[in-house]
């Protein structure tokens, strides 16, 4: 018997199996006892509860953008998605019951997408209850807690709104939280972190902000292919000009030197492209300052002034000296 069913008596367990068979309309096709045997012998898929608070579902869509493994194999073969508002078949009280039962069983991976409002609970209610309460009670018996996207990791955009969104760490203090910022979460960062946990039953090495070092250990600037143009003060001012096509995007507001993520190496969406390669400045979405303290996004401002000051002081080494 695996962890998932720890605490259930054999009688409860058979009842659960009968319930499963009946729910599927398969009581005639598969005998209850046969399901029970299969359950006991088969390797269990790790259960997952994915909560969405003050979110845009962008991190969810990011998750289903990975080609290998395919979303179908992820959702059906690799993990047991007990609760995910955007994916699950159930609605209403049936959905909430699935979450409550999984909590009873314990040992699940908890992923939280979106911030939690601190100005007033009523800014985010699910099933008639404050989202904050749902996060607290679901975190209690989780085997691992992952905050995906800038909102859950650091508050992100909701932090600066009237609802005063706060990150997961403020709502479940004292627990290890793996933060996977960027807006939305990078699909590879999430997939790799989950796989790392399933293999080792541990969190990967984290930086002081709770981000796995394997993804957030180097700055965007360190690996930027436009870096040599930064060194030469060649800054793009006109997106139409083929000569400037690969020049540094600092003048357009790039925050790459102050942003830690492996985007330039890994790129996005199955390696097809990423912000800077598409001519768009890095907006520092993996950093706690995102968004309000990174503004203006597309112009020189406090962030780029700081970067230029560091450059003048020789604190940002030239590419060949790095």
């Amino acid at each position: 018997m695996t962890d998932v069913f720890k605490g259930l008596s054999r009688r409860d367990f058979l009842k659960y199996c009968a319930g499963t068979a009946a729910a599927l309309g398969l009581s005639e096709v598969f005998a209850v006892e046969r399901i029970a045997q299969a359950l006991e012998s088969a390797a269990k898929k790790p259960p997952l509860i994915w909560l969405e608070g003050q979110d845009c579902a962008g991190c969810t869509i990011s998750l289903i953008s990975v080609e290998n493994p395919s979303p179908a194999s992820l959702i059906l073969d690799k993990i047991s998605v007990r609760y995910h508002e955007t994916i699950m078949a159930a609605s209403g009280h049936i959905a909430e019951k699935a979450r409550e039962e999984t909590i009873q069983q314990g040992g699940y991976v908890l992923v939280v997408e979106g911030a939690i409002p601190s100005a007033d609970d009523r800014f985010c209610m699910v099933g008639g209850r404050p989202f904050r309460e749902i996060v607290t009670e679901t975190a209690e018996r989780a085997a691992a807690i992952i905050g995906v996207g800038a909102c859950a990791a650091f508050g992100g955009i909701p932090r600066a709104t009237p609802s005063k969104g706060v990150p997961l760490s403020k709502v479940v203090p004292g627990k290890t939280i793996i933060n996977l910022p960027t807006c939305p979460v990078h699909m590879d960062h999430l997939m790799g972190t989950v796989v790392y946990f399933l293999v080792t039953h541990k969190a990967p090495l984290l930086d002081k902000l709770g981000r796995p070092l394997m993804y957030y250990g180097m700055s965007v600037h360190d690996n930027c292919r436009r870096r040599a143009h930064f060194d030469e003060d060649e800054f793009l001012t006109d997106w139409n000009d083929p000569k400037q096509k690969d020049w540094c995007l600092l003048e357009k507001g790039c925050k790459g030197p102050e942003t830690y993520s492996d985007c330039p190496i890994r790129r996005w969406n199955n390696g097809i492209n990423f912000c800077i390669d598409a001519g768009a400045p890095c907006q520092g979405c993996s950093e706690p300052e995102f968004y309000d303290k990174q503004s203006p996004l597309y112009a020189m401002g406090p962030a780029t002034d700081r970067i230029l000051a560091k450059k003048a002081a020789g604190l940002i080494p030239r590419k060949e000296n790095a």
Partner: protein
Amino acid sequence: MGKRIIIDPITRIEGHLKIEVEVENGKVKDAWSSGTMARGFEALLLGKDPRDASYVTSRFCGVCFSVHQMASVRALDAAFGARVPWGGTLLRNLVMGAEYVYDHLVHFYHLSALDYLDIMAIANYTGKDSELNKVKDKVVGLVQRGDTFPLTPRYEPDEFSVKDPDVVISAVKHYLDALKMQIKAKNMGVIFGGRAPHYQSIVVGGFTQLPDINQVTRFRSILDELATFVNEVYIPDVVAFGTGPLLPLAKAGIGGGHPNYISYGSFELNEAGTKLVFNPGAVFGLDGGASREPFDPNNITESVRYSWYKEDTPKHPYEGAQVFDLERSDAYSFVKAPRYKNVPMEVGPLARGFVDQDPTLLGLVKNYGVKPGAVARHAARAIETKKVVGAMYTWCDELLAAMTKPGFKIHDTDHWEPPVEAEGAGFFEPPRGALGHWIRIKDHKIANYQAVVPSTWNASPRDERGVRGQYEESLIGVPVADPENPINVVRVIRSFDPCLACAIHLIDPKTNAIRRFMVE
């Protein structure tokens, strides 16, 4: 007094939605739609560099991602006086076209189909098709391992559920195939968009990525695969379901609602902008033929009578003054109630189809007796996906022609700096329907920002006159045989493709000045 049923959360949508219905004699007698999450983006934008708006408002929603970027840059283009070069428009249209295909496929197969399929009928499949047997083995394997999440738990199948094993198994196969196709659609958009969700390359004045020939070729090659899937799988599935097992639902017009439709128009097919994929207009009447008129943004007002904002009379988005108020006892939603000429309108694929008098959609009405409702919405969505795919070929051709000429431009660099003082409105037709953004700039900064979004139109609560919003109205008369299993309610609601995160905005009472805009 009938029985009250609350469904909260409505899942397989974007955002947080609660639906409450009163059921009497097996039918919905009354309904209330409540948005239950709010962030307050507009307040955040006040005082910021106007160019931030497109990036920030994109985060209204990550499912129908970047549509707000589009409406926002159009409002900014207008305010900055920017003239987007044809190359910039083509690139914007191509990435948004990719978003359409991804979005409509996900909505039909992954967000809606489970409402219509008795998925476990797969166990009874006896055919010899090896691909289909793989699907059977997968689902049966899940059952045998006792872990069928997230396919169950669920509402129980009813008389409208498709139970024929052959039909169900091929639909589930297509569900799995479509999971791959939606990735391809996003990959395609990312070639120019930078990343998805939330493209990076759409900015005021145009686009940030100068394309090369290989990228266009790659885009077109993925487009070929998607076109095949849309034409040979998606559309035949919708037709087979709509004219087959779901025809009784379609003919009964389950989920019809108010017969008023509006589209703002989108997707230029020529440089002059005189030819569009979707035309703007407003129609009143069941098949859209009763009364058609040009779209005039001045006819839009928003009511906060039953919303958690300080009481006020209905205002045009340019003039609305809102302060949120969580203590109002008769309010029940964060969603406001937009009205056009004081009546509720439906927005989205069905609305676009009727405004355009689309012959395929009207053919379904005429030849099969399909009435506006849940099934018709799915049909309209499939029909327009094909139109957008067709347009993308045109845009690829136009782009290749334009980019191989000297002086090719993607951005209006002369209008990149924010003006001292200006106003602008931007309109776009995202997959979910009519979207408008309004901006006012003062001292080079955002002085006011307002968005009236598709799900605000569809999910709105009642207005001053007590007239229900479209979700609410569409639920009236919907059969609910078993209050414990209100599957028809979620079918109707999901047919709109709800996207609630973007439907809700609020303004901080402390920072909010009287919001007054001048109409251009």
